[in-house]
């Protein structure tokens, strides 16, 4: 394939318009765009993120630590539109280097962020005069349901968030789903979720799934009236996982406990051990209640531009370099 043919298959003009639409959306809501650092001392400790190391720094897997320090420093509404990097992620929906849109609101909860997300996606969709993707109608409001409801409806499995891995495994198997021979809570859950639930999400309209089980808490805070789940949501649309949002954890002691537990699990599994970002932890003491989200812009482009492969919306995918 010649370079001309390769480029002709790409939706690059549309991506440029998409970026402009995103910025216009946040400018109109008086957000400040942040150029988040790319080289950081800690890329985050989540078990399933593998970072690129560069000398004594790492390429960011998400700008969230620095964005939260800005909230602690008094900023109210901020967004970042930039590249993040995750090793070993390559496929039709993944590229090791991809564009992440993150935005945060001080003094707000996940509901406001969910409303932002609906409005943003709809504004971008109208920009491209897209109202439906396949049979998925994009106009808000979108259905919102809890992880527990989704697991029960499509998988016939009750997931509360306080069951141990053995119980979860038994319930998944009893409902007739395949259970892997080993794996922790997250592994058993996601195996079941991908087999049973995810194929049903976002088929007829984008679907917002909230109240994630506590073992999948990441950087989200516990739900005030039900500690078995955390304030976290994801949106699925037409076969794509678009974004992940949190009511942000601001309890430094709890955050340290989670990071240390992640680090211990990394040691135990022989994974790379990343430093705990002490400046991030120290800032949590001054951080106001806040909510924030990370949205994959390449996925949004795929959704709105009708691309089935992430290559079609990137000037150069990893294997085209």
């Amino acid at each position: 394939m010649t370079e001309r043919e390769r480029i002709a298959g790409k939706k690059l003009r549309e991506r440029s318009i998409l970026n402009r639409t995103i910025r216009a959306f946040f400018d109109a809501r008086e957000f400040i765009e942040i150029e988040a650092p790319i080289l950081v001392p800690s890329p985050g400790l989540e078990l399933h993120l593998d970072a690129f190391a560069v000398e004594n720094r790492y390429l960011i897997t998400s700008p969230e630590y620095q964005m939260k320090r800005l909230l602690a420093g008094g900023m109210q509404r901020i967004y970042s539109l930039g590249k993040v990097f995750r090793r070993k992620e390559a496929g039709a929906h993944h590229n090791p280097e991809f564009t992440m849109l993150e935005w945060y609101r001080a003094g707000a909860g996940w509901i406001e962020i969910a409303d932002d997300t609906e409005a943003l996606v709809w504004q971008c969709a109208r920009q491209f005069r897209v109202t439906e993707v396949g049979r998925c109608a994009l106009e808000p409001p979108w259905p919102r349901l809890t992880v527990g409801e989704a697991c029960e409806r499509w998988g016939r499995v009750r997931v509360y968030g306080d069951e141990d891995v053995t119980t979860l495994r038994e319930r998944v198997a009893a409902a007739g789903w395949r259970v892997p021979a080993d794996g922790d809570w997250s592994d058993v859950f996601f195996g079941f979720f991908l087999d049973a639930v995810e194929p049903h999400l976002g088929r007829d309209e984008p679907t917002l799934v909230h109240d994630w089980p506590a073992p999948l808490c990441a950087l989200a805070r516990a739900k005030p009236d039900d500690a078995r789940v955390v304030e976290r949501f994801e949106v699925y649309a037409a076969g794509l996982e678009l974004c992940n949002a949190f009511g942000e954890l601001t309890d430094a002691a709890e955050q340290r406990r989670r990071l240390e537990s992640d680090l211990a699990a990394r040691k135990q599994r022989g994974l790379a051990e990343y430093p705990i970002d002490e400046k991030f932890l120290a800032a949590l003491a001054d951080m106001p209640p806040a909510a924030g989200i990370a949205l994959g812009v390449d996925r949004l482009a795929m959704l709105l531009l009708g691309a089935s492969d992430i290559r079609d919306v990137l000037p150069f995918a990893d294997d085209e370099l």
Partner: protein
Amino acid sequence: MIDSDGKRCYILPTMPSSVDATELRPGLKLLMDGQPYTVIERQFVKPGKGAAFTRTKMKNLLTGRNVENNFRSGEKIELADIEEKGMSFLYKEGEDFVFMDQQSYEQITIVKDLVGDDWKWLKDNMVVFVLFWNGRAIGVTLPNFVELRVVTSEPGVKGDTSGGAQKPATLETGATINVPLFINEGDLLRIDTRTGGYCERVKG
């Protein structure tokens, strides 16, 4: 390599008995819940906060049903002992079918259920692929196209040459299919075994 007694010994290459989820490829034969499957497609998937998985579309080789499963990276998946052999059809024995292995000349009997509706296109000496699981025949695949002769068919009504009109014709295997009106007894027809439909008349 040299073993502990100082004698030379050889390690024979053997088929691995399992693969990692990341090694799944179309065509690979797997064992799941005690049933053999063939991989049709696979895709890298990774929930934002979860492990990487290989989403795998597979066909059950016993039932023919397609299923989709997500195998976690690092998960070991057992391989099924599947072998495909080219065999030629010899003759019918009662309701069953006798085939001969083209390499070993060994004969095997395959029960009618395994052949199913494909009996319609089976002609003496036709070479088909027989799928074996742990040495037991589990499936028969015919060539996509076969050529069969018409043994009986009423003549078409003269003058009726309109496009869609069809009439029944009985083939040398005993099967009856619909053919265009211009087909005569003795004609050789090309049949698509996947649809069971008439394709064209061939010279011969």
